[in-house]
């Protein structure tokens, strides 16, 4: 027999504690009085549906969760951080990331599209240790199986999102180096990138996070300690994987040869050229040079310093401002709206626009001949 759902007062306490929020902060952010909040959480008084919705929005929970449809805490997925922000900020961003992942899953379900995660998985059976050469081999396998080509940097995100069912979001947060990922039975695999980062930095981040998703079971099952942070060893392996994935050895060697003509590479413009070719940062190129050509640590550090000075004046790569929501997510939301799978108000909430804008979009769909379009029977 399934357990009885927790009452709302308990859910309200759980949801607030998850984000490390005080009642005073919640009162300030929602406009609900602190004494009312206290009464709601003690079960002395019931909140109205409008108040529940306001709290659900702040707590990044669905209304149905607040009303007791789903289990209270079971199966809360781990969010694995690379350079985790301070606890309160990490909790807030993690909650937003998980909510978006759930919403993405809902859209997939409502549109009747395939929503399984199609990633090659590293078979951990019998292997106690994961070595650098395993990471390199896994990178080659992934590149081959996903047909990523010789320079996967710029197309990796699209392939993961459109072809592999990996949900990739861009949110703005500090410190700027962080990214995160998660895996769940419910919504599959998700990656969170920092939209404040430059595209070539994010391409490395996505490859790095991909390693964690591929080896999730190996490193996360029965692990000891804080599951929301990886060990130094695991992080190092993720970097090795990312380097190998984005800068395949043979292609990288040829690129270096083409630019340096057999001499050791030492010119900042040469580093920059290789970085552009592979869609990565100059720092990532220097690490790869160290791995493949035995570039000394001092030379790497010196090159990084030269690069920083040079880049201030000469770097001219195009920066971007990625949408928080993946294109596929937005397309699914529109399909769901057109097929009558979700309300205009919920559509507006899912894609982050006003209700009025949602109405306009619904109207525009009809004006373009996309009239009510019932989905085919399941």
């Amino acid at each position: 027999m399934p357990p009885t759902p927790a009452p709302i007062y308990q859910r309200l306490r759980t949801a607030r504690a998850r984000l490390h929020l005080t009642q005073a902060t919640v009162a300030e952010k929602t406009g609900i009085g602190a004494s009312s909040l206290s009464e709601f959480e003690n079960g002395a008084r019931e909140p109205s549906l409008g108040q529940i919705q306001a709290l659900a929005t702040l707590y990044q929970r669905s209304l149905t969760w607040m009303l007791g449809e789903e289990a209270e805490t079971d199966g809360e997925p781990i969010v694995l951080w690379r350079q985790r922000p301070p606890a309160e900020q990490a909790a807030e961003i993690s909650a937003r990331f998980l909510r978006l992942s759930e919403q993405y899953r809902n859209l997939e379900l409502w549109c009747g599209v395939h929503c399984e995660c199609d990633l090659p998985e590293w078979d951990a059976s019998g292997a106690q240790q994961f070595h650098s050469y395993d990471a390199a081999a896994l990178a080659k396998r992934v590149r081959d199986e996903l047909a990523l080509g010789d320079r996967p940097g710029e197309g990796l995100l699209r392939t993961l999102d459109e072809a592999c069912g990996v949900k990739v979001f861009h949110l703005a947060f500090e410190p700027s180096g962080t990214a995160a990922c998660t895996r769940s039975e419910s919504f599959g695999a998700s990656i969170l990138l920092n939209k404040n980062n430059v595209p070539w930095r994010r391409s490395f981040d996505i490859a790095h996070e991909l390693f964690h998703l591929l080896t999730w079971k190996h490193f996360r099952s029965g692990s000891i300690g804080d599951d929301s942070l990886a060990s130094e060893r695991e992080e190092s392996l993720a970097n090795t994987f990312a380097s190998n994935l984005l800068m395949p050895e043979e292609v990288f060697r040829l690129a270096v040869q083409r630019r340096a003509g057999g001499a050791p590479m030492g010119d900042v413009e040469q580093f920059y050229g290789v970085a552009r070719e592979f869609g990565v940062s100059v720092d990532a190129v220097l690490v790869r040079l160290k791995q493949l050509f035995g570039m000394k640590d001092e030379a790497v550090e010196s090159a990084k310093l030269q690069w920083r000075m040079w880049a201030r004046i000469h770097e001219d790569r195009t920066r971007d401002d990625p949408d928080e929501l993946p294109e596929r997510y937005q397309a699914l939301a529109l399909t769901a709206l057109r097929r009558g799978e979700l309300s205009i108000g919920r559509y507006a909430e899912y894609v982050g626009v006003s209700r009025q804008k949602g109405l306009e979009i619904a109207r525009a769909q009809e004006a373009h001949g996309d009239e009510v379009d019932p989905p085919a029977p399941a």
Partner: protein
Amino acid sequence: MATKSIRLLLLDANVVLELHRLGLWSGVVERCEVLLARTVLDESKYFEKDDGNQERIELGREIETGRIKIVDVPLAALNSFQQRFRATFLERLDPGELESLAHLVEIDRGCSISSADAIVWRTLGALRLGDQGASLEEILGRIGQTRKLAEHFTKRSRELWTKKGFDEGLRGEATR
């Protein structure tokens, strides 16, 4: 006060906004006994006029004078309504629709509901309450008004989606 010809219309926010945009809100309130769920009231703050400017929706006076009535649906009724459906089905509704439907189904089956959303008609159909839906087009017809409306406000749209919801209900795809 004269008896109003149409009893209890639970409107969702899209219908409230559209009636304001068309300048027909007062006419409907005049002729119908209008009920709004509290969440619908919260969602109906502004509407966009044809010239693109936003205008505030002021319902305070009509509430004070009892020309429209606001309903708050208790948690027990919301829970009981939710229990009727399969997981994530109600996630498709916005809070105003959820509260309006819960009121209709759990508290007062004597009223009708008006919406612009297919999912509302599907829900009514699945619960075999399709007869209690009224599109904006039908409401305007009842008060002697006609306007060219977007498809999602039409009787055709309501009937199409109600039928779909009814079929889903028969197949057990929406309800428990």
